[in-house]
């Protein structure tokens, strides 16, 4: 069940120029959290900004800690970054359908940029379930490869790509994955990152016939499935478009069901 609670900030660490790691005390949410789910946060004490902001669950701790990782994008996240340890913030969660957790399988996780957020949590749970993990992680440059040390300490096969080549392969993480796809096979794959990268990921999994899930983003209001505002275009069995809530129908979707074209254009049909 989704909790609506005031969570105390245990710590807020700056991880990069505009990226923060936030540790909250929220046992009821941490206990129920599944990788791929998110929390919906009030980022103001006033009515401006008005709406909550969704942030994926990055990790949970043994003592009810809930860990988030986010980038300052606008006023909501800027407010969040201004809150220090001891402050309380109002959060709803855990929300949404997370990733399908495999057991004893070979899986690939493909993270682009802040796409690392839910995939780190997924990697941890997937390891516990006895899976073998190839983890592909791409970012603009080495400074933006957040949580690299944490990943290195995990029993996963880590592959790194950066746009500028400052760490690992130079180029998009999907390109890097493509190299390995020819030689390594997967039972399932998972991706989170910018939409263009996810579309490329979806192209690859179709070509290599791999079951795949992606985590999508849309602007949200309620986060509860009530307002129908956060939809994304999916394809039904006959290839016809329909709109599904990202908040409760997702944020994780089967890559094969997602309509990867320009969603706006469909309006004209």
């Amino acid at each position, binding site marked *: *069940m*989704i909790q*609506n609670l005031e969570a105390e900030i245990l710590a807020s660490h700056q991880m990069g120029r505009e990226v923060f790691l936030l540790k909250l005390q929220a046992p009821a949410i941490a206990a129920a959290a599944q990788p791929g789910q998110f929390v919906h946060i*009030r980022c103001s004490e006033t*009515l*401006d*900004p*008005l*709406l*909550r902001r969704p942030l994926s669950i990055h990790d949970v701790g043994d003592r009810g800690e809930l860990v988030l990782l986010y980038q300052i994008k606008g006023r909501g996240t800027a407010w969040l970054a201004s809150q220090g340890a001891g402050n309380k913030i*109002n959060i*709803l969660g855990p929300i949404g359908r997370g990733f399908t957790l495999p057991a004893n399988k070979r899986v690939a996780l493909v993270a682009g940029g802040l796409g690392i957020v839910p995939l780190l949590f997924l990697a941890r749970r997937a390891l516990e379930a006895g899976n073998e993990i190839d983890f592909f992680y791409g970012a603009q440059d080495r400074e933006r490869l957040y949580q690299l040390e944490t990943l290195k300490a995990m029993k996963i096969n880590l592959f790194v790509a950066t746009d500028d080549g400052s760490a690992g392969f130079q180029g998009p993480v999907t390109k890097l994955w493509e190299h390995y796809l020819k030689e390594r096979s997967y039972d399932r794959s998972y991706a989170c990152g910018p939409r263009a990268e996810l579309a490329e990921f979806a192209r690859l999994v179709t070509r290599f016939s791999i079951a795949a899930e992606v985590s999508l983003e*849309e*602007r*949200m*209001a*309620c986060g*509860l*499935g*009530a*307002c*129908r*505002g*956060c*939809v*994304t*275009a999916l394809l039904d069995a006959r290839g016809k*478009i*329909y*709109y599904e809530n990202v908040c*409760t129908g997702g944020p994780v979707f089967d890559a094969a069901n997602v309509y990867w074209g320009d*969603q*706006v*254009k*469909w*309006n004209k049909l």
Partner: protein
Amino acid sequence: MEQTVKVPRVNLAVQLAGLTLQNPVMPASGTFGFGEEYAPFIDLNSLGAIVVKTITLQPLIGNPPPRLMETYCGLLNSVGLQNPGLEVFIRDKLPYLRRFSPPLIVNIAGRTIDEYAELAERLSAADGVAALEVNISCPNVKEGGIVFGTVPDMAARVTAVVKRHTHLPVIIKLTPNVTDITEIARAVEDAGADALSLINTVRGMAIDIKTRRPALANVVGGLSGPAIKPIALYAVWQVAQVVKIPLIGMGGIMTAHDAVEFLLAGATAVAVGTAGLVNPGALCEIIAGLEHYLLEEGVEDIKELIGASQM
């Protein structure tokens, strides 16, 4: 043996178009889904009424995303009446909703007058529907919706037709996007409306300066939330001066304080939309806040507040 009897010290109940509401607070159509989404957070039985998302005859897939954009103290939406259609509503949603005691108000929209008629007829035959709220004011669909809401004659025709096809109380929901809302209100009252809901969202827009494209795929959206409260309150005040039928006031109600303003302006009940999207407990907090306000002010019956603001 002594007994402690908890006597409710204030009366929150109001009468609205033949319905008795235990309190004047209900969700605004389209912001409360079909009720089940809010069940984890509030007791639906504590509401004054339950109001569901607009139902159309056929399922509607709605507008493409992005459908939402936050504005200063406001929310733009262009959901476009996405809904599963009348049949699925009756089959899949109504049984759940029937479990609750507050009157169920079903909001309807047609593309044609005939569709309004059919919706009214079939919902009146369904068990568990207490009243119809007729949406002639959605800014997000091209056909139907708003065209019926901006021309007094059309508004009156829809009202009359719906009235002929139902025994249920008929609430007409008005748009603020008109030169003179009292003209529409009067036309609709004359055509037999039992109550009015006002206001629906105010048309608005935002532009994403990065992509230089309208922030909503649909370009125009409906503005709701605290930003529009003064506009809504004035609409209620104006209309309260010229009609005799009861009003459901809505638009930017965030707190019990806001709700009291609407009652004082002449609303018999209030609906809460955007506030519930931000805080799922909002409806219940507003109900509790009203009770608290009455106790503090020494008002025994909330009905004393209705229309009590005078120059």
